[in-house]
């Protein structure tokens, strides 16, 4: 296992170009991704995918090559914007994820989009509709309904199919790290 990226705890990186009189502040954010065999909050029931090898690529450069942690987690620090997570088999890239860090409020949990966003954060599949191709499209389609039912089942809350207050509360709490 090689680890080429520093893992210091500094909250941000500031650099001052020689030809500039101003500070150029690059804020670095902690990013945590969990690879799991099934959706839901990590840390229980053997959901984690182990032994995945991956590399991080930013602006075309490989900044880390490593193996996921025992809990299936990849942690790294990234600026707002895009980082590529590439899964490796025999040092060959076989799958990749374009990880985009955004800083803004989540859509309200009482909206379909907000519910879809949280279900996706927890790993539930919604299909590939919507602008990001992740099923978050603001429409209560059959895949979203199926995901709600699966989530309610896994949480052991009443399987009512629609997003009631218990489901809203659970979704709100479960997505926060």
């Amino acid at each position, binding site marked *: 296992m090689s680890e080429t990226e520093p893992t210091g705890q500094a909250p941000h990186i500031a650099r001052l170009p020689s030809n500039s009189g101003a500070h150029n502040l690059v804020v670095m954010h902690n990013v945590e991704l969990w690879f799991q065999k099934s959706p839901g909050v990590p840390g229980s029931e053997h959901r984690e995918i182990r032994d995945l090898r991956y590399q991080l690529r930013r602006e075309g450069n490989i900044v880390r090559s490593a193996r996921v942690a025992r809990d299936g987690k990849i942690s790294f620090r990234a600026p707002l914007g895009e980082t590529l997570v590439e899964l490796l088999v025999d040092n060959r890239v*076989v799958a990749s994820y374009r990880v985009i860090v955004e800083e803004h409020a989540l859509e309200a949990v009482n909206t379909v989009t907000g519910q879809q966003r949280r279900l996706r954060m*927890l790993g539930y599949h919604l299909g590939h509709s919507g602008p990001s191709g992740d099923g978050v499209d603001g429409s209560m389609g059959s895949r979203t309904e199926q995901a709600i039912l699966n989530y309610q089942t896994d949480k052991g809350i009443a399987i009512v199919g629609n997003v009631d207050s218990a489901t809203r509360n659970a979704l709100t709490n479960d997505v926060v790290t």
Partner: protein
Amino acid sequence: MPIQVKVYRQRLGQETTSFRQIIVPIRFGRAVNGAPVRDAPDPDDRGFALGSEGIWRLTNVRGPVVGVPVGETIRLKVLREDIDATAPIFVTSSQERVVVTPITALGADGIFQVRVTGPVLVGAKIEARLGATDGPILGEMIVHVMGWTNVPVCCHLVKLNGTVMNDGGNPVPAKTGRTQSAVRTLFDNVNAIWLPMGIRFNIVEWKDTECRLSTTHGNITGAYQGLIGIDNSDQWWIQANELMHVNRRPHAINVYFVRGTYDADNGTFNTTRGIGTSVTAATDYGVVVADPGDGNDLAHELGHVLNLDFHGGGNIGHADDTSTSEHSRDNIWIRRRLMYSYNPYGSTGDGTPARRVNVGYGNYVRGSLITQKHLAGDPTDGEYAEARTHATSALP
């Protein structure tokens, strides 16, 4: 093409909230779309918890469950939900008697075969792996292996109340229009649906049953005498019940094929296409099926004989559900299940009100899932265990 993953942070004043992002690359599903097929069962993938049924709940496996009788070969599919379409995925089995093919990487369609060659230890599972047969496990499902239980069936081709006349004064047949060949085809469909339970309905006898019902119910006279009277009163089943006492073969499920049913209250024909009564009932158990009934209808009624109730015990699942609501529990889970409540809202082919016309089998195709899991909060779940308890070659 990379999968896009958005990671969110939310800043409120000085406080920053980070949100988790979980990636589940694959899931398992039916190998085919459309009507039930014998070798392409519907895995019970409701949630990833296993509920209280089966010894497998004691294992560390989480995910869907598929039933396969010993000696059978089925097809399943890996769906690449959150991983590149070209990612090399291999499927392996945790036990020798569960044989998986191909041993090479799956094709673009993700389909693979599972053949069960003998009894297995509890917790047999199929694993989808990345890159090689010993690669990281991306997903897993339980293979629930069981032996076959053969259930004897006696088929009655019924002629009811003699020749009747239709409204135009023309004679119409009082006998079912089904032939033995057609009924055999119907049971092929039924046995395809029941295969994941390891239950096989075997026709052991044919009877040409002719009778004249003594009970009257509704306006079953004149042109309607060849039909079983059905209406919405508390006694709607009374004529079917009388028929199920006629010419019975003991220690078998007696299935009576009739020309049709008539609801005198509403003046409608064949809105009820089948009636099934449980082996646990005080009266004679059995099935009555109208000519328009299909394999799904018959499989459903046979479920009642094996003491399976409608999902939710006969109640429509959601307390707020009405004929115009869109609660998913009714649309997705109830209607995907073989034992869903057909009434009062009509079939999945009914586009009005706005119900899901596709519950996982394709547009306007009814589901046929019989549940393996026993999930909390559903008194009619755990259908595998219930049906197997009552499916026996030594019926009363």
